[in-house]
């Protein structure tokens, strides 16, 4: 297949990555630690500046000990699932790496899940062990009713921090915030589990790396749950090859970073695939220091991290860049050492990207991907960014726009984006029919409508499901939201289609105002200046905030559901 985009790769970028750099993630962790040793690998930074750091060697040793605990003490076998429910913090890399070294499968669980949501994910993935942060452990009795998890390991936000700050953070959480409740299920604390594992290892019965020797590149490394567009939560089976290759593909595209010298800000949760592959695995492999932010909300929680560390690289989503751009402290002292930022997870709006570059003097490189592709499919090459474009496919990846029949559309026309490459998942866990729908002849169907420029840059038009049909014309909400984002009186917006007798569907915009004096007429008048008549929102509703996902993606489907309830209530009344 022809790949016109390779001409935009930098001189050092390989078009094809033939060789898998490591057989599995456990080997990647150990090898990297042997190179960078005592250098700082992970630093957790709390809103008040209290922090803790683990070196590459420490993370390596602790994760090896945890692997020994899981296999020898808890009795897990290769391929058993281990669920991890934790916000960003020092336990995250230790546990994730420990699971890989044990030859087990990591199941990332959103810490903010309700007991009911947790129970569903446990019932589907059937983990043999769970590592959970104490703040969320009160949901356990309820969540474990369906599937019983024999081994529960409890950790805490301040784990592995120096003792005085750890004590203060613990006391504040317990007595002031009252976010820590007694854990009502049998459990062991993470440091105790690590100590028990280390003791077993020291008995000399197990050699380092003995578990990973039998882990093949195509064994499952992670079950990464995704709602997709259908709302049914499915576990994408990502193999060691998927994640290692996607990390290598993405890092190949990122030029200008130096091994062992970068400081990366990880404000996005690592249980999300974007920060998981790019920050946790990618920047660890690069020998960078990862600054972990347990909770980036409110955004002032990031202030100390920017003050105390020379951040050279950060990843974020549109909402994060937009939010930081209106924080006074950030505008006053934008990070001086930043080389660039990368955006993913949702469409990066032009106005947001431009404002960010104006403030920091450095570009935001937009990438594109989904959980099912580990996640990166395309990325904007540094120095060759094209606005409103998701960039060009990463090495070793084919991308095409397909029509309804699965045939490539003519260049420049819109079709469903499909991707083929080593990062495409093995399939959905225990859901062969869903897998068949998502992967056709080796091509992953993304459900996104896109176009390709003549030279190979791709542009997302919108989600297939979100398209609005106004009197036979296709209206893509992204375009309207992009237009609204450029209005100085608007913070953010979401656009959906609502049933309308005359035109089939009508465009409706939910708007969060910056300027309280802004009226519906103002918004419509502004849109009329920039958009064709049928695209102008007929309905405008002002809101204080918009529903968002755990990474800050605006959830149009929630607004649609709300609208449907309203319509049906009106009909029955």
């Amino acid at each position: 297949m022809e790949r016109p985009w390779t001409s935009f790769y930098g001189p050092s970028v390989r078009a094809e990555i033939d060789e898998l750099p490591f057989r599995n993630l456990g080997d990647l962790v150990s090898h990297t630690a042997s190179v960078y040793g005592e250098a700082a690998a992970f630093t957790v930074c709390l809103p008040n500046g209290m922090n803790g750091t683990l070196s590459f060697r420490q993370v390596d040793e602790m994760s090896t000990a945890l692997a020994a605990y899981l296999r020898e003490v808890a009795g897990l076998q290769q391929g058993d699932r281990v669920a991890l429910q934790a916000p960003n913090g020092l336990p995250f890399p230790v546990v994730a790496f420990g699971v890989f070294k044990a030859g087990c499968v990591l199941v990332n669980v959103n810490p903010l899940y309700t007991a009911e949501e947790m129970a569903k994910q446990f019932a589907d993935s059937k983990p043999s062990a769970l590592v959970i942060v104490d703040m969320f452990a009160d949901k356990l009795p309820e969540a474990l009713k369906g599937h019983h998890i024999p081994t529960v390991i409890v950790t805490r936000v301040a784990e592995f921090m120096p003792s005085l700050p750890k004590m203060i953070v613990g006391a504040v959480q317990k007595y002031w915030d009252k976010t820590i409740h007694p854990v009502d299920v049998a459990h062991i604390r993470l440091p105790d589990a690590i100590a028990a594992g280390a003791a077993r290892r020291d008995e000399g019965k197990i050699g380092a790396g003995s578990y990973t020797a039998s882990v093949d590149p195509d064994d499952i490394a992670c079950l990464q749950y995704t709602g997709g567009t259908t709302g049914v939560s499915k576990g994408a089976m990502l193999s060691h090859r998927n994640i290692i290759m996607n990390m290598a593909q993405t890092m190949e595209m990122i030029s200008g970073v130096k091994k062992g010298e970068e400081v990366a800000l990880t404000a996005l949760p690592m249980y999300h695939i974007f920060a998981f592959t790019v920050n946790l695995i990618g920047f660890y492999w690069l020998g960078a220091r990862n600054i972990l932010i347990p909770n980036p909300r409110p955004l002032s929680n990031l202030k100390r991290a920017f003050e105390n560390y020379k951040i050279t690289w950060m990843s974020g989503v549109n909402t994060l860049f937009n939010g930081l751009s209106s924080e006074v402290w950030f505008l006053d002292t934008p990070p001086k050492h930043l080389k660039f930022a990368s955006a993913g997870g949702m469409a990066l709006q032009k106005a947001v990207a431009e404002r960010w570059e104006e403030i920091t003097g450095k570009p935001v490189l937009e990438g594109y991907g989904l959980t099912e592709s580990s996640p990166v499919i395309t990325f904007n090459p540094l120095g060759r960014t094209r606005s409103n474009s998701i960039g060009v496919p990463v090495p070793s990846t084919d991308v095409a726009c397909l029509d309804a029949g699965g045939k490539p559309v003519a260049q420049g026309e819109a079709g469903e984006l499909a991707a083929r490459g080593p990062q495409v998942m093995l399939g959905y866990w225990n859901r062969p029919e869903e897998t068949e729908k998502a992967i056709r002849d080796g091509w992953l169907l993304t459900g996104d409508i896109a176009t390709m420029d003549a030279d190979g840059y791709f542009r997302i038009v919108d989600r297939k499901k979100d398209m609005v049909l106004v009197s036979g014309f296709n209206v893509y909400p992204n375009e309207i939201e992009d237009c609204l984002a450029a209005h100085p009186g608007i913070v953010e917006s979401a656009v959906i289609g609502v049933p309308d007798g005359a035109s089939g569907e009508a465009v409706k915009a939910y708007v969060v105002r910056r300027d309280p004096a802004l009226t519906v007429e103002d918004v419509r008048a502004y849109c009329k200046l920039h958009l064709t008549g049928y695209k102008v929102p007929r309905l405008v509703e002002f809101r204080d905030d918009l529903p968002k996902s755990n990474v800050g993606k605006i959830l149009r489907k929630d607004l649609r559901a709300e609208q449907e309830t309203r319509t049906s209530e009106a009909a029955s009344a």
Partner: protein
Amino acid sequence: MVGPLEQAILALMIFVIMLGMGASLTPRDFALALKRPYGLFIGVASQYGFMPFIAFLLAISLPVPDPIKIGILIMGCMPGGTTSNIFTYFSKGNLALSVLMTVNSTVFGVVLIPLVLVLYAGALDLQIPRENIIVTLVLLLVPVAIGMGLRKLNANAGAVTEFLGSLLAVIFILFLIVSWIPRNWDFLTTTTWATYFGAIGLGVFGFAIGYGFATLLKLHPRNARTIALETGIQNGPLAIAIIAFTFSGTEAQSVMAVPALYSLFIVMTSTMLTFWFRRINNAGEQKLPDGLL
């Protein structure tokens, strides 16, 4: 009235507070303050323009003896108190602005306090030993510098110092109030209404004028609340410490009457103001982007 033990506790408390304040700062906070001279101007104007003038008007119009007048005047010329930061937090004000105003008024106070004090004392024909005051103020900057150094050296040490600084400050204040009132009951019952009026009025007029001034400048309600609290809340412990270093014997005790009463009542009036601010704060609150975690 304020015994040696209490003076020692006050001195220690000031040291801890200033240490904690220093630990919350980086040199670029000062650079930023200079970059925004507008904010600096508002702070200096309210702290060294309005407050000393209110104190002067109270001193000249109230029927009180000279030592009480000196007490009112010193109290009015003090920099912002760090408790203003706590009340600003609970009032949903602008915490960064509050900390910065407190720090700026303390740092610039080294020059401005003796200047303003001598000016008004001259107008009232009162004797003020300004050298001692300058020395005390300079000494005050030492813990701030140590705090800043600690943070630079180790971010954890800085954060722990900052945390313990504010925690100890609250504990000290509570301890002093609880232990001081019963032992000074006689003093409280024999003090004249004019002295009470001066001690309480200073803070209350400060709140009102600070709020009016900020509203006049069309500042955001959050910032207006902050400036009101920052203007009215003075550094009471510092006033007591300065008086202890500067005056002696019964004169010192008389001069201290107003700072002591001021420190007691400012906690109550600030609490009431905070409740009112919380009530009127609704739509004006800044929306934080949610859904990031």
